[in-house]
């Protein structure tokens, strides 16, 4: 929701002129409804920045729903390209959509990528009473009879959840397009469908499935990561450990408009670099179920561009 604050921001930004050390007012734009992943990213950044006293006033969060961030992306490029106080939440899902040309005519080079704040990982789960106990067993059984394993994910065909499963399907020598895949409405719908027996395989994110795994409501077969995750995940094997060299980090980060001055861009990168080292940030990040993902400034920019290149190849391979 856009508040009067925002107009104040605009007015102030106009008055303040170019390149202040710290933007007069900071705002984080979430390209979706309140309550989703973008909102979480904005609130993580805002709360931690304020708690660590790196900004004076709390950061305003505004919402601009549409096309999983596409509307916000186009809005920033078209309408507020030079607003140095504005950061916009993004995720690996944004990179995937950009790679598929679903963000309109703009590609990944149209904005300035500031940094990642943390990451989640893809997981593959089956119901608690399933006879399948490991990823290897799943891939063997799935390869033999894909029709016996309807899959559910929280996104459309071509989304991250679909892509994760497409990679698993490839390992099982199954054409991803032959998967019985139901595009459900978000992770909650996936876990209920799994518990209700409507689907046999759930494709989702680690943070939203771990509690049900611990309660014995479903079984996570593998975390799609190249390294073992800490905490509640310390007993769950990764894809790499089980011999499949596929991973799916779901990073959450921020970008700024294309015409933001170098000074403002640098201020954001430096501030986030300082922020990610504070205890306040680590606490806020862990409270939101995210793992460390230190990639800021030029490094993050490289990461995003490598991701979009990878996703383009994947989408082509999967026949999208």
């Amino acid at each position, binding site marked *: *929701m*856009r508040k009067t604050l925002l107009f104040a921001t605009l007015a102030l930004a106009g008055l303040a002129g170019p390149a202040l050390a710290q933007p007069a007012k900071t705002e984080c734009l979430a390209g979706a*409804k*309140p*309550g989703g992943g973008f*909102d*979480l990213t904005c*609130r993580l950044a805002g*709360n931690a920045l304020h708690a660590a006293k790196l900004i004076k006033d*709390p950061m305003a*969060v*505004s*919402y*601009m*729903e*549409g*096309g*999983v961030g*596409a*509307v916000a*992306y*186009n*809005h920033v490029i078209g309408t507020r390209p030079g607003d140095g106080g504005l950061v916009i939440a993004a995720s690996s899902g944004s990179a995937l959509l950009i790679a598929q040309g*679903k*963000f*309109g*005519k703009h590609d990944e080079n149209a904005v300035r990528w500031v940094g990642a704040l943390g990451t989640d990982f893809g997981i593959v789960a089956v119901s608690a009473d399933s006879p399948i106990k490991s990823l290897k067993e799943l891939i063997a059984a799935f390869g033999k009879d894909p*029709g016996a394993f*309807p899959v*559910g994910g929280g*996104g*459309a*065909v*071509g*989304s991250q959840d*679909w892509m994760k499963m497409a990679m698993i399907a490839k390992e099982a020598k199954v054409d991803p397009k032959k998967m*019985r*895949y*139901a*595009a*459900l*409405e*978000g992770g*909650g*719908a996936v*876990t*209920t*469908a799994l*518990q*209700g*027996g*409507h*689907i046999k395989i759930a494709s989702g994110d680690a943070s939203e499935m771990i*509690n*049900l795994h611990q*309660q014995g409501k479903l079984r996570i077969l593998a975390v799609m990561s190249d390294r073992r995750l800490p905490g509640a995940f310390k007993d769950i094997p990764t894809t790499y450990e089980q011999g499949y060299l596929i991973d799916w980090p779901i990073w959450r980060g921020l970008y700024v408009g294309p015409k933001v001055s170098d000074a403002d861009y640098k201020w954001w990168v430096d501030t986030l670099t300082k922020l990610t080292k504070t205890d306040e940030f680590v606490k806020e990040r862990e*409270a*939101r*179920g995210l793992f460390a993902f230190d990639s800021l400034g030029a490094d993050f920019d490289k990461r995003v561009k490598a991701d979009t290149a990878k996703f383009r190849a994947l989408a082509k391979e999967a026949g*999208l």
Partner: protein
Amino acid sequence: MSFDFLWQGMGVALMPQNLLIGLVGCFLGTIIGCLPAIGPINGIALLLPIAYTSGLPAESALILLAAVYYGAEYGGRISSILLNVPGDAGAVMTAVDGYPMARRGEAAKALAISGISSFYGGMIAVIAMTFLAVPLSWLAIKFGPAEYFVLMVFAFATLGSMVGHEPVKTLLGCVLGLMLTTIGLDATSGAYRFTFDQPELHDGIEFIILVIGLFSISEVLLMLESQVKGTLKPLAVTGSYPSWAEIRYIWWPSVRATVIGFIIGVLPGTGASVASAVSYTTEKRLSDKDGTFGKGDIRGLAAPEAANNAAATGAFVPMLTLGVPGSGTTAVMLGALMLYNIQPGPQLFVEQPKLVGGLIASMYIGNILLLIMNLPMVQVFARMLLMPNWILIPGITALSILGVYTAYASVMSVLIMFGIGIIGYLLRKLGFDMAPIVLGFVLGKVMEVNFRNALALSGGEFGIFFSSTLSIILWIMAIAIVLVPIWLRRRQAARAAAGQPA
């Protein structure tokens, strides 16, 4: 299962601090609900960080957010009835019978009736939640794509009641609604349909934008037209309250609507808009013997209002017992629980009796507060209609633009709203009803998505729609809702014929 949590909860909810917070929440909710397009989800997203950073304990924060949520379901009816502008998604069907009553000068009565039926719906649903939350949570799990599809078949079967004296126009309107839902991302193939490369259209047309366009903008245009022609009559506002007989009269329609609304609310795939639509059409199917629905029948007003409050309450069931949000608004509340490091699930009732009990108890109190708050204000709100048109018409337009822009932060949304409004105006001039369009839109999306998901899961086998007991029951209900009213009418006619001496 013991009900200790409820007694502990009463203690929590009756603490002066929490009583005050509940009162504030109810009040804010009523206002938020009343403003077009701005719904409880916006209000809660705004309040949550404030509640969290100001150090409110988890149960107080939840009481506040919940009060805003069900308070908004009360508030939504006000603008529906007075201005034909649904205040939020759940209040659309309220306008169908509420607005004609206001035009007749019975605004105060309509507001009171709908306030009371909101209370019926909210209260019965809280009682149901208290005793049935845990047993009912299996419903949310058992409903897969196939079951949702058959539920929508049932919903469309109740739509038979909307076919009035011009069945062709009703069907055309319904098809128009169905066509509009196909705009946007097609999840089953990942393709964008009819988006014309506009990112604003990737998610399709927002329900609330459609509704505001169809109802409020077209209404403004109609008012302007009659103003120009000089036929716009000032409204009479009589201060009549409903009689006791009328309050008793709406009891059964409200109860039926509450049952429908509560169950639909419990299901995570459907919300208050589906609940109010299905309860309205069901009530019309069962009770509309003289064709008074849509012309200001108090049963047609009571049913959707009871249903949307019941649905809002029902949405808490999967949130608390399964950790699955029953609606967009409860999704934000779920985020609030996680912020406080509280894990939802069946054990919540045992582990956090103060929190769950406090929340549920506060909903008993909140509904009573809302009734007390809403009834005296009825006269004040009704007087709004006495405003001269040079204030009213620009006022409605400004509120509509402001609401849509605030909620979606995009000029495109406002333009879409106007476009839909102009089409709505033309359709109304041609004698179309707006309700079938809205119903086609609401039900069509859920129906299509679940139909295709079910077939994706079964590999194209249609048997999946008949494979569970739940589906079979829903099929039987769908057939019954078509046949029973016909049978009832025949029997009545036969009796009447038999009763008359030949």
